[in-house]
């Protein structure tokens, strides 16, 4: 097939009119949900209910209901925290980093990915809060004057985490909301329902699509992207400091920050890709979220998956090369000890499965990429499990070595986190535009003046 490489290909398939785009993206908000939606919602709400029930039990009886015990003081709670925070990273990567790189294909998926970021961070944030055991005292995590004259420890990575995660949540929310303002205005001008109109008027602040506003708006978008880029890198770096700053073999390594960030983007892309496959089909948006876009996401998964695989190898190499017997023991124990099963699940899912994306056929096959992305998420969950649990279960004092086993309550809370996340995602798809209307219009063929674009 001949391609004309002198022209930039449009990221939107066909040449839809602007009105079609407005219409197609707004339809889900203007129609009643169908049966499939209710079925999906009831499933996620059931999960959420199970999680809530387990949490209430935990609050009443305490975290003794969980499997954590000496020496494995961090287990499912922290594994889930790191997992969900990681899921969020794809959204910011797509909305901020790809924006700075002027990747037009991001427009179709940015909104949805950002929403997933926010929901993932909300889900993640739950875990440290319940992990402290007495969640009603969580306010002490933030520095404030109190009757005890107590202050937080500003030199602890755990406190850095408090700041990193809450800043990340706030900035993602703002970024997302700024993107939504013009779309709310469009919806406001479309709707015939008075209540909806009131809601959209309030949410859009009375936005007028004025070019005197667009000018500042684009500047702010650029600034926010500029802030969000180092921010997203800092968040998982700081999460990795929770481990790397300690002295436990298997945690105390300098490779952690880049390796954690790559892993986060890896799993985040997998989750976004999984969800988008449904969204584009259900809402008939295949011409905006194109197969090319999905293929590009798979390429990023291939890249980050390879980085993660490299990090696993490098950890082993350093364990041997450092000559530190404790490090070597920890890593050999990971691969061949009590938790070898978890380690090999992680290796198969994270290192081997994405390598199949080298083949163009596989990369463009929707059922295949869906399965691989699920594998990736399973693998990334196990990565955090392997890192946290194997290191802790074999600490410096052999007499206290133990085998950690999660309880039913642990499992229930994990299920509940998926319930919470997907409930929010489902509600989002019916309440707000899943694709940025304004941004997509700007990248359709013929939407920009010809005398500047240079082609045609």
């Amino acid at each position, binding site marked *: 097939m001949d391609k004309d490489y002198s022209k930039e290909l449009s990221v939107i398939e066909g040449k839809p009119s*602007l*009105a079609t785009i*407005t219409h197609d993206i707004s339809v889900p908000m203007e129609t009643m949900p169908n049966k499939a939606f209710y079925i999906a919602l009831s499933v996620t709400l059931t999960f959420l209910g199970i999680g809530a029930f387990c949490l209430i039990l935990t609050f009443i009886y305490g975290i003794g209901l969980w499997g954590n015990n000496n020496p494995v003081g961090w287990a499912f709670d922290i594994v889930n925290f790191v997992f969900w925070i990681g899921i969020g990273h794809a959204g910011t990567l797509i909305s901020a980093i790809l924006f700075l790189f002027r990747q037009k294909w991001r427009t179709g998926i940015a909104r949805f990915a950002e929403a997933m970021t926010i929901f993932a961070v909300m889900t993640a944030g739950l875990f440290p809060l319940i992990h402290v055991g007495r969640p*009603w005292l969580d306010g*002490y995590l933030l520095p404030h004057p109190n009757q*005890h*004259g*107590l202050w937080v*420890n*500003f*030199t*602890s990575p755990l*406190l*850095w985490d408090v*700041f*990193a995660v809450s*800043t990340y949540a*706030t*900035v993602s929310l*703002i*970024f997302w909301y700024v993107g939504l303002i*013009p779309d709310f*205005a*469009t919806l*406001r*001008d*479309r709707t015939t329902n008075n209540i909806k109109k009131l809601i959209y008027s309030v949410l859009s*602040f*009375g*936005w*007028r*699509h*004025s*070019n*005197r*506003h*667009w*000018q*500042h*708006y*684009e*500047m*702010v978008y650029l*600034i*926010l992207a500029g*802030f969000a880029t*180092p921010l997203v890198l*800092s968040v998982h770096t700081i999460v990795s*400091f929770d481990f790397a700053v300690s002295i436990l073999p298997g945690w105390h390594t300098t490779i952690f920050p880049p390796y954690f960030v790559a892993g986060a983007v890896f799993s985040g892309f997998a989750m976004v890709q999984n969800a988008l496959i449904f969204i584009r089909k259900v809402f008939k948006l295949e011409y905006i979220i194109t197969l090319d876009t999905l293929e590009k996401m798979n390429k990023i998964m291939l890249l980050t998956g390879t980085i993660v695989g490299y990090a696993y190898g490098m950890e082993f190499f350093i364990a041997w090369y450092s000559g530190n017997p404790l490090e070597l023991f920890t890593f050999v124990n990971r691969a061949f000890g009590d938790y070898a099963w978890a380690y090999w699940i992680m290796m198969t899912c994270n290192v081997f499965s994405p390598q199949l994306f080298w083949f163009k056929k596989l990369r463009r096959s929707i059922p295949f990429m869906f399965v691989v992305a699920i594998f990736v998420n399973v693998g990334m969950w196990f990565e955090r499990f392997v890192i946290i649990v194997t290191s802790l279960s074999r600490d410096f004092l052999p007499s206290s070595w133990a085998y950690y086993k999660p309880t039913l309550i642990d499992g229930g809370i994990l299920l509940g986190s998926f319930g919470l996340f997907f409930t929010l995602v489902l509600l989002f798809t019916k309440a707000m535009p899943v694709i940025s*209307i*304004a*941004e997509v*219009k700007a990248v359709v063929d*013929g*939407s*920009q*003046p*010809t*005398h*500047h674009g240079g082609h045609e």
Partner: protein
Amino acid sequence: MSKNLFAVAGLFNTPDEIIKASKAVNKQYKKFDVNTPYPVHGMDSAMGLKSSKLGYFALAFGLTGMLIALSLMTWVTTKEYPLVIGGKPFFSLPAFIPITFELTVLLASIGTVLSMIFIFFKLPNNSHPIHDTNYMKSVSNDKYGIYVLAEDDNFDAEKVKALFASLGAADISEILYNEDDLEEDVQVYQHFKIFDKKFVVGLLSIVVVVSGLAYYMLNKLFYMAPYNWMMTQSKVIPQAPVSDNFADGFPMRNPVEGTVAKGFMPYEYKGKPEEAEKNLINPSEVTPENLALGKIKFDIYCSPCHGYFGKGDSRLNGQFPNPPSLHSEKARNFKDGRIFHIITDGQNNVMPGYYKQLSRDDRWAVVNYVRVLQRSLNAKEEDLK
């Protein structure tokens, strides 16, 4: 021309037309605006706009955030709550960097966005005349619009319409002020009905709910009783006959039977000096440090009876069964193990054992030092070389 006229607006179908139109309008009028469903490239220069100043706002807010973070952390760690943590200095800049960074980004993002919306855009403004017009509905969907305000000095409705028509506008319309907004100030003020009963009641109930919730959070959930329980906790009071720590009145438990506390290994050769002499082997190395340790310990624990040089001529001489000289034939022929045994176990109920005061390593060091003392009075031929 009606008093109600706000602006004259034209709608165009393509981005090229709107760029052309705004260039043409910009030549004659100052007060006009362009509305497009998405930002059109090159529009800023076509409208003659200067580049946005929001970047400076971001910088200012970011620096403020940075300063707040650094000064709060410095004040807390050096003045208000100085605690040594992990041997780090109170002011440890590297450990402050993550939080400084986060607060910089946080404040910069919030500040920039809020100033964009409230200062630059003067939003929220839902009563702008173009709202709810056909014009607004088209530009927020798929048309490109431009309007010239009636307040512009050169404004003439007919001329503007003619201009738009010559530029190929698909639709030309007049935008009128909303009737209500035109009336006198007093009426606008009545329009909002700030002192309306319902509004006041609503406001009051919000105040009550919010402050009630805040009170509950702070006082019930968030409140930790001050740490006064050291006074009241169960403990052993000197002279008190019974402690309430345990049911049997004892303040502490005996160690579990058969366990040995660290450093309290029982002495195997108690009362068996000969066996000790035969089996115990001096594990310590004779180094200057070891001898120095031995001398310190000997001077503290042995010299009161045996004298600084082990001659038995101490300041206690005569007040106590006189300790023998350590330079006797007998003492010199003791093996190291025997001397260790004497230090550990005592001798003949006259010299007490010193195992409580001296650790195992200390005792061997003293043994070495006794050897040195003995050698010094009975040096061999080769020592003199």
